[in-house]
C-alpha cells in the first residue's frame, strides 16, 4: 500500500483536544531510525532546529524511569534546555517520555512511534499538552483543525499582528 504521507514533508495534526501529532516519513529502515532518534551521538547531528544551533549536551538513560537532558546553544550564546524522563521503551517501535522546557512550562507526554513499510519509516510523534490552550497555541500558525470559533477569530487577530 502506498504511504499516505510523502517524504520531505512534516505534517501536523490534532488527534484529540490536547494533542499534536507530528508525522514525517523517512527513507530508512525502522531500526536505523530508532537509533537515530534515541542515541545521543546521532541526535546531536540532526535534532538542532534552525541553522545556528548546536546540541553540546545530550544525555539519555534509555530505560523506564531514566532521565534525559538536551541542551542547545546558539552562536550568540543563548541556551535552551529540555529535560524529562523516559516512561516506556520498546525498540524499535515506540518510546514514551515526559518533558518540560523548565519549571514555568507545562510538562508534555511525548509518544514516538516508528512504523516501517517498503523501506520507509513513518515517525509519528504525539505530544500531549496539559491543556487545550497550550496545544492550540502550538498550532496557531497555519493550522485550523480542532479550533473552535473563538480560536479561529483569535487566529485572525494574530495574523493582523504578525
Amino acid at each position, binding site marked *: 500500500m502506498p504511504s499516505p504521507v510523502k*517524504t*520531505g514533508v*512534516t505534517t*501536523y495534526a490534532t488527534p484529540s483536544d490536547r494533542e499534536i501529532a*507530528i508525522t*514525517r516519513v*523517512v*527513507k*530508512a*529502515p525502522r531500526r*536505523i*531510525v530508532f*537509533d*537515530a532518534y534515541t542515541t545521543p551521538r*546521532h541526535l546531536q*547531528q*540532526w*535534532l*538542532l*532546529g*534552525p*541553522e545556528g*544551533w548546536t546540541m553540546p549536551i545530550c544525555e539519555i538513560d534509555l530505560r523506564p524511569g531514566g532521565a534525559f537532558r538536551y541542551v*542547545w546553544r546558539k552562536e550568540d550564546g*543563548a*541556551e*535552551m534546555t529540555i529535560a524529562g524522563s523516559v516512561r516506556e521503551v520498546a525498540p524499535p517501535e515506540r518510546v514514551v517520555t515526559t518533558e518540560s*522546557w*523548565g519549571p*514555568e*512550562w*507545562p510538562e508534555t507526554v511525548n509518544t514516538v512511534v516508528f512504523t516501517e513499510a517498503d523501506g520507509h519509516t513513518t*515517525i509519528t510523534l504525539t505530544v500531549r499538552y496539559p*491543556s*487545550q*490552550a*497550550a496545544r*492550540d*497555541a*502550538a*498550532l*496557531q*500558525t*497555519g493550522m485550523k483543525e480542532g479550533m*473552535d470559533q*473563538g*480560536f479561529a*477569530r*483569535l487566529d485572525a*487577530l*494574530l495574523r493582523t*499582528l*504578525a
Partner: protein
Amino acid sequence: MRAVSDSLSVTFSALADPTRRAILARLASGAATVKELSAPFEMSGPAVSRHLRVLEHAGLIQRGREAQWRPRTLDATPLREVAEWAEEFRRFWDASYARLDTYLQSLTERENTDAQPS
C-alpha cells in the same frame, strides 16, 4: 529556539477558556465596558468579572482610567509572544527533520558499505 518567557504558561492558561477567548475577540474590535462584554454571555456579572481578572493578570487586557465604567482594552503583547513560540515550534521540527533525512541517508549508506563483502 529562542530563550523562553516565564509568562507564557500564564498566557496559555488564560486562553484555555472559550469565554475568555470570546472576550478577547470582542476586544480586538475595540474597547468595551464590563457590561458590554457581559452582554453575549448568559453569565452573572461577578462571573464575567472573574474572567476579566484572569485576563488582566495575564496582561492580556488593560483598564481605562475613567472611574466607574472603566472600559477594557486588549493588550496583544502576550499573544504575540505565543504566536512567536508557535512559529518556533514548527520551524524547529521542519528544520530538524530536513536534517534527519540527510543524516539517515549517510547512516544507511555507511551500513550498506559495511555490509558489502570485501
